[in-house]
């Protein structure tokens, strides 16, 4: 949905995994709403063109930053840079994630560790460092991207669903702990969203999955970004510790 608003005017935002799918949609949605964005991705240079394009198109400031979210030192340096350049951080979007399917009995240690490193440990570290700035300004919004499989589970996804379930519990804990500092922490649990990651399951399985969605279609990354916009904005100042499903009444 297109709104003629600048709901995030001059708010400083860090978005991980900004280069594709849901992260890219949030990146553009927030830019169009006037946010100053530190757009993060792992591959150096991959966001340079979009940063230039969005900053001109939406008359705002976009700073591409490149680091691996599993590198704690890089996280610290990025947060320190934001503090030095803007002395504030209004919103953190923990979006970067990996998904590898594995049946019980085929879940390897390597996939287990990689998935939890990216999907769980990295958001915890980012929250630890980002909340330092937010505490000093007595406010902020942290949005973690979970998944419908984190709330409902899903056959063949024991590792991925466990990691996204962990995102939900860490969201609720952080919300309780940071509420006295007026820092809101919420999660979005997207259902079946039309991204390259989702389409990697193959066309036959996509059709079968769509048949289980109440609304009869996949969601778009922009529709997830709309929920993120709401949670990042001052329209949700009294909302924290919530898991917002964006799933079109999907059954899983």
């Amino acid at each position, binding site marked *: 949905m297109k709104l003629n608003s600048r709901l995030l005017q001059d708010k400083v935002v860090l978005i991980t995994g900004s280069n594709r799918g849901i992260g890219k949609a949030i990146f553009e949605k927030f830019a169009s709403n006037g946010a100053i964005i530190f757009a993060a991705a792992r591959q150096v240079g991959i966001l340079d063109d979009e940063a230039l394009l969005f900053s001109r198109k939406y008359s705002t400031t976009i700073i591409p930053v490149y680091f691996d979210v599993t590198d*704690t*030192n890089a996280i*610290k340096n990025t*947060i*320190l840079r934001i*503090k*030095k350049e803007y002395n504030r951080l209004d919103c953190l979007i923990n979006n970067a994630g990996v998904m590898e399917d594995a049946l019980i009995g085929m879940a390897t240690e390597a996939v287990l560790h990689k998935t939890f490193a990216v999907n769980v440990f990295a958001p915890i*570290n980012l929250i*630890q*460092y980002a909340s*330092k700035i937010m*505490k*000093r300004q007595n406010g902020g919004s942290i949005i973690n991207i979970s998944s419908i499989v984190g709330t409902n589970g899903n056959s063949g996804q024991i590792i991925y669903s466990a990691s996204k379930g962990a995102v939900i519990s860490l969201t609720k804990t952080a919300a309780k702990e940071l509420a006295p500092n007026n820092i809101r922490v919420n999660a979005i649990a997207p259902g079946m969203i039309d991204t390259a990651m989702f389409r990697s399951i193959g066309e036959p399985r996509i059709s079968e999955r769509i048949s289980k969605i109440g609304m009869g279609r996949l969601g778009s990354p922009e529709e997830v970004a709309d929920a993120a916009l709401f949670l990042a904005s001052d329209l949700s100042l009294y909302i924290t510790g919530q898991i917002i499903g964006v799933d079109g009444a999907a059954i899983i």
Partner: protein
Amino acid sequence: MTNIEKYNNGFIEALNVEEKNLNDLTYQSIAEWDSVGHMNLIATIEDAFEIMLETDDIVDFSSYIKGLEILEKYEIEF
């Protein structure tokens, strides 16, 4: 202001202690230096020196003296 003055002021400001008592100060030795006071102390020191301490260092920051050792890792000289 010298680095030691900045450091001492961090304790005085965050924990409301007197300078003469700093040398013997350890975590949880006074009511003000509880876990909440600890995070306030860390925030004050980080602001004073424009650094961001690593999580392990925050956990290890168990006394006034230990804090001096930790800050030296961040190229702060006393």
